[in-house]
């Protein structure tokens, strides 16, 4: 069964304290891994797509990396405004119709950055 597991569930950091969030997946034939940021009471905001092991994407203090079994979202010198829930998602494995592709979402990591 296709699964996405995120850890930790919650993470509390001091401003400037770098850390990483983990997203592990079990899906055959990865066709992309997506990271989202969600602020309380709002819809998820798309951040990155990663397609192959070794790929990296960066945006401000965030860097996403991908291996064959997991992805990391590294947060360097975070600020309070980085506080949010971070979600990752993958399309289901090969063999499933590729046109109208659903996504399998993890339950997210709640990040709180204190000043």
């Amino acid at each position, binding site marked *: 069964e296709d699964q996405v597991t995120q850890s930790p569930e919650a993470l509390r950091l001091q401003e400037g304290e770098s850390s990483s969030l983990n997203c592990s997946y079990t899906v055959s034939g990865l066709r*992309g891994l997506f990271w989202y940021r969600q602020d309380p009471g709002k*819809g*998820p905001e*798309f951040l990155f797509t990663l397609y192959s092991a070794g790929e990296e994407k960066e945006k401000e203090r965030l860097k996403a990396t991908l291996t064959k079994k997991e992805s990391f979202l590294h947060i360097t010198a975070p600020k309070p405004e980085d506080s949010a829930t971070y979600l990752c998602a993958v399309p289901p494995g090969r063999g499933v119709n590729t046109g109208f*592709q659903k996504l399998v979402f993890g*339950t997210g990591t709640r990040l709180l950055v204190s000043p």
Partner: protein
Amino acid sequence: DVKVTQSSRYLVKRTGEKVFLECVQDMDHENMFWYRQDPGLGLRLIYFSYDVKMKEKGDIPEGYSVSREKKERFSLILESASTNQTSMYLCASSLYGGPYEQYFGPGTRLTVT
């Protein structure tokens, strides 16, 4: 920029009422999705559509229906609202055939009393 809009940010309805939630996207996406999000349960797919007048059940379709009469618009209907349908409802869209990232609207917080 992709823009997905939802008709209401907050909605309060009574048990038994018929509720319409509307979603509009301006990026000519073929695929549209309705999710609900509840604490501890994450995002759960209710229905999705890959073309006008086409619809597919998601993981939790019971108590909901959908309508897609135009490509840019996807409506979620609660035929007879119940208190267990109190939730955050999120609409999303994506391109048919990929790339598969979905773009979300701001959400509608529905409370059924």
